């Protein structure tokens, strides 16, 4: 920081080289653009960005020092009314510790065509709105005037930021198509940024360098002591290299969100920069983050992380008492984990670092993720268990692909026992158990960080699919009414899922789920076991009467042997897909149904035993049937082993479910003897 100031006081002037695009000049909207009635390459587009130019540069300002300047120029075509949303734009401006981002030079106009004449309506003050969004953000919005179907709008503005450590993510794709996009990122050699990209569209990034110089006025003094002091002014020049990244691309298709995508933030095309180190001439390198060791070091050095792990006094007495006489490591882990889970209440804030601190959090029994899980890690270490924090980027965040601090927003704990077994623990989740993590974590990514500054990427996804087991014992009569009992058992992640959704409900509400889901006419004798026995499965049982599953036509009776358990609807309806299907964890639905047929009827048709698979062992289906002594028995197994299925397997999984539904819908035919 000091060195930065030094340089700042020396440099008085900065000359930036700016260039403007040739084909797209601000204010030069063509008649062709105004007359265009739909986007050539995608007729479903309600609007399109005709041109977007984004220029990010680090420039010097005499009074404030180096600044991050982001210049935006956009020209947008609104084809129809559904595209009018793109006539407004909002910007969040970060503020922290007396520094804040500002916006300047906002100009805009709407262009319409009438009687072959271009009519321009300027954006005025009345269309610009400023407000305080939150403690850390101001908001500015504007909406363009005189919008019609076919309008072209244009605007430009500049955001000036004193925060150099991250450049806002640069989107290379939007929800509407982009006709031409130009991006330039220029940084002086003193600032070294790491970059990474996301998305499925190839990015053509050109790196180059050019020389730049800063001319500054230097005031020097001669003479000392009793001699007359002379001040003289001289000009000197600092020369440096600027690293320039350029992207120029045309016809970027619209980003379309698809169901079961997991986190779409990971699929839209974009480019991100993070400051890795700062190096001024004749100064040592100031690393911000560069290798994982550095990241780990920085995290541990943060007083809201490393120091918090070391504090033991506040819980010492309680933990001593808790584990006194316990020598088994596994038992100790379980005791401490349950203790923290039960005592602490998560305030829903996600963070890698503590806010009010572990001591205060412990006293108040509430805290953020760091307070709760660093406390847990510290207690485990105190009890001589090998425990380390795991920093996590949760499922709604961009995956952190390269060494960076900003990628993480959450922390959990990892334990390694003497026998080599590993447990991930998150004490913010009241329904959690070791290795069963909340959805926000299991679908995210993590990095375990050790005190010796080593770190390692880890995946939380379970290797084994979680299992649901349903069994039905029932009999049907000649009127097509089925009476029987159902037993449903959920394990592992599926038990966790059940608890998250239903544990807070009373039994009547729990039972009601089945009535609506399965169309049960009468549901009775409902009971449930295991909701509070974390680590074990949950079992629900009830008796039922179902009137609408069986069809009696003349002297024949028809029904699907799985009755109401069968899959009826394929969730995959789109014709194609670009992004992976993310299930979070593998799962298996197993059904066993025994149906006693009515007296005086015989089975004339019964669906045959069969089985099929998804490629690469990603999933399998089997159906076995058997008829003995007037009882039909069907055993079905639907298993998806892979927690994530790549997009190129989409046709396969769609067809897989089509086949499943078709097979499960095959009918048993009974005939009156």
């Amino acid at each position, binding site marked *: 920081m000091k060195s930065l100031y030094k340089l700042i006081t020396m440099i008085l002037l900065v000359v930036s080289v700016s260039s403007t695009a040739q084909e797209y000049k601000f204010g030069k909207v063509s008649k062709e653009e105004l007359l265009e009635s739909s986007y050539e390459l995608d007729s479903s587009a309600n609007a399109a960005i005709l041109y977007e130019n984004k220029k990010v540069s680090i420039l010097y300002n005499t009074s404030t020092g180096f600044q991050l300047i982001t210049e935006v120029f956009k020209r947008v075509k609104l084809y129809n*009314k559904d595209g*009018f949303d793109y006539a407004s734009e909002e910007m969040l401006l970060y503020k922290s510790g007396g520094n804040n981002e500002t916006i300047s030079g906002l100009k805009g106009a709407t262009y319409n065509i009438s009687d072959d004449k271009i009519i321009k309506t300027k954006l005025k003050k009345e*269309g610009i709105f400023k407000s305080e969004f939150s403690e850390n953000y101001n908001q500015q919005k504007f909406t363009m005037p*005189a*919008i*019609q179907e076919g309008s072209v709008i244009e605007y430009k503005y500049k955001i000036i930021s004193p925060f150099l450590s991250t450049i806002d993510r640069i989107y290379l794709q939007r929800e509407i198509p982009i006709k031409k996009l130009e991006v330039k990122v220029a940084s002086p050699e003193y600032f070294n940024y790491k970059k990474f990209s996301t998305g499925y569209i190839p990015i053509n990034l050109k790196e180059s360098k050019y020389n730049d110089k800063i001319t500054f006025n230097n005031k020097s003094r001669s003479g000392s002591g009793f001699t007359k002091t002379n001040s003289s002014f001289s000009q000197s020049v600092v020369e440096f290299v600027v690293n320039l990244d350029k992207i120029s691309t045309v016809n970027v298709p619209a980003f379309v969100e698809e169901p079961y995508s997991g986190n779409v933030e990971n699929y839209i095309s974009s480019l991100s920069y993070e400051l890795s180190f700062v190096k001024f001439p004749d100064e040592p390198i100031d690393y911000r983050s560069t290798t994982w060791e550095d990241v780990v070091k920085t995290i541990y050095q943060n007083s809201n992380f490393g120091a918090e792990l070391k504090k033991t006094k506040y819980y010492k007495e309680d933990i001593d008492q808790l584990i006194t006489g316990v020598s088994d490591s596994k038992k100790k882990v379980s005791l401490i984990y349950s203790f923290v889970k039960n005592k602490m*209440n998560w305030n829903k804030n996600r963070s890698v670092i503590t806010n009010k601190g572990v001591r205060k959090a412990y006293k108040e029994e509430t805290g953020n993720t760091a307070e709760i899980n660093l406390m847990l890690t510290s207690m485990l270490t105190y009890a001589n268990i090998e425990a380390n924090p795991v920093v996590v980027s949760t499922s709604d965040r961009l995956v952190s692909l390269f060494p960076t601090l900003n990628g993480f927003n959450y922390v959990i704990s990892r334990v390694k026992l003497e026998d080599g077994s590993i447990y991930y623990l998150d004490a913010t989740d009241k329904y959690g158990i070791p290795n069963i993590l909340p959805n926000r974590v299991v679908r995210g990514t993590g990095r375990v960080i050790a005190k010796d500054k080593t770190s390692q990427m880890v995946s939380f996804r379970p290797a084994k699919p979680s299992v649901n087991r349903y069994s039905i014992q029932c009999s049907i009569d000649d009127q097509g009414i089925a009476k029987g009992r159902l037993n449903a058992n959920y394990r592992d992640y599926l038990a966790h899922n059940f608890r998250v959704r239903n544990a*807070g409900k009373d039994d009547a509400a729990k039972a009601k789920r089945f009535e609506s889901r399965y169309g049960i006419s009468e549901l009775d004798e409902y009971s449930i076991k295991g909701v509070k026995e974390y680590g074990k499965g949950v079992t629900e049982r009830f008796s039922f009467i179902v009137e609408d599953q069986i069809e009696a036509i003349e002297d024949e009776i028809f029904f699907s042997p799985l009755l109401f358990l069968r899959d009826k609807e394929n969730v995959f309806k789109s014709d194609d897909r670009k992004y992976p299907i993310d299930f979070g964890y593998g799962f298996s639905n197993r059904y066993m149904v025994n149906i006693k047929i009515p007296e005086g009827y015989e089975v004339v048709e019964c669906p045959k035993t069969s089985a099929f698979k998804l490629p690469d062992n990603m999933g399998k289906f089997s159906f076995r049937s058997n008829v003995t002594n007037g009882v039909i028995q069907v055993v079905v197994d639907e298993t998806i082993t892979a927690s994530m299925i790549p997009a190129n397997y989409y046709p396969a999984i769609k067809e897989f479910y089509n086949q499943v539904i078709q097979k499960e819908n095959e009918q048993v035919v009974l005939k009156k003897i």
Partner: protein
Amino acid sequence: MRKKIQLVLVAVFVCVSAKVKAQDDLSLQAILIDSVLTENANAIVRSENVVISINSVNSVVVKTKRVVTVLNKYGDRHADSYEPYDPETKIKKVQAIVYNSLGKEIKKYRKKDFSDRSMYDGFSLIGDNRYIYFEHTPVDYPYTMVYESEVETKSSAFIQPWFPITNYNLSVEKSSYQIINPQKIPLRTKERTFGNYPVEIIKGDQEISYKLSKVSALRKEYKSPSFTELVPRGKVTLGSFSLVNVEGSANDWKSMGKWQYQNLVSGRDELPESVIKKVSVLVADAKSNKEKAKRIYEYVQNKTRYISVQLGIGGWMPMMAEDVDRLGYGDCKGLTNYTKALLETQNIPAYYTIVYGDSDKRDIDADFASMQGNHVILNIPDEEEDIWLECTSQTAPFNFIGDFTDDRNVLVVKPEGGEIKRTKKYSPEENTLHTTATIYLQADASIVADLVSVSKGLQYDWRYLTKLKPVKDQKLHYKEYWDYINSLNILSLELEDDKDNIKYQEKIKVNATNYATKAGSRLLVTPNFFNRTKSKMPKYKNRKTPLVISRGYIDTDEYIINIPPGYSVNKLPEGKVLETVFGTYACNLEKIDESKLKFTRELRINDGRYSKEKYEEYRQFMSKIRNADKSKIALKKQ
């Protein structure tokens, strides 16, 4: 189950009661609550005490003390943690104290602990409403929060009503409300839905107070009246009042409407000469006022878009017509006023109309004049019947308000005063969906079908927006709509929105590889291909609220089914006819020739309000329809 909890709680109480200090208020303990209050409840209002002092028309002070015991996480939102304000309102005092189940204080929030935020609704471009709040993380349940606030507002046009039960699953132990009016400013009151509740009313000279105790929690029921109709509400309004520094007085809708016209609407309708000229040309050859109005409405739809702006009196006053003209946007007030101004240039009288916009119908209270409503539409009196215009929609047909503002009392603001009118009601005969289809069933269980659906009235409203989606989403919409047909493909789509006649036509060609089910030599087929009642209504052992069917409709279907060669039906099932007060249902299958069947279906649902006892009958009616709709026939191979 509940008994068990009570036992446990009592046991806990016995063990720890010795620890409760004398100064701890026993009512803050959450362990001795009557089961009348805990049943179905997520939270209990232990006591609420609202005192409103009307110091003058420019100063109203509201003091609130609210004690809420929260029983589970679903009840957290009833523990007050925020207080809204605006430039007219000053929060003089606010604090909250949280107690655990034994009545021990565990946390105190003072005003400085509250964060200040803009009331960002994610929708308005800008607004100056703000709120302060704090985030409390419950450590354990039950807990009790004592919330106290004192707020002064300069606007007296709204007096906070008494609304003791604010939600489902919330019970009330004690609630009181008192108006103190030392200046004796004349006030009027109106008590709604007091009948079913033991409310104690004390009326003084221009003052009033209400009290209520021991009300158990309500549970939401399917097809019940809207919540506001089920719970008591005491409304108070002043004869003279102030709204953002504009003073007024009114005792009936006529004078209230007049005040609103003079202070909020009038003089905001000027338009530049060029615009008037343009509009005159636009309507020059129109034959009737209605035709002129239609052209002007469509002109506005093309020219403007809807944007929400909530600033100062701007929250009540429309933007100037000329500003809307120039900028091409406005909110409901601005767009309605603009349309009104354009119509008036052609000497077509049109009136600014205040309404509660919601698909749950809600009336402007006809016999209680006060500031009401949340939306504005336009009324044009015409020879035969009133014309109603929804000016915020760029897609709605002329004179079509749909289910957002239909069939309810509204306030028409005329220069001479306000008038309560009722908006258009769409009868079942108007809300029709007629579908014809030709289906080719193949021996491999697949089908190919052509169908044409025509919808009118509210059924038009419920369907026409699909046309505005991209083709990919349109296809997905039909796949969801007919989700019971596995492997459905949409081969072609022709959607036609005839806005002049308010008629929507869907011409669709589909196929599905496994529509029928093979069972040995039989093909099982559901002859109702395209219009099945899918949802299942819940059953209640002890229903508490009347049955409300808010809108009626008629569906008619006619399908020609071509069966594959070599197959035939032995015996056709008998037709079904159901007749009830709620509506009628009939379906029938007949043979046209050896290879053709004809399926017909007619469903009529009547709108209406029925006693709670009737609900079960209605449920059974719908359940029978559901079963009839999915019943199958067996085709046999010869």
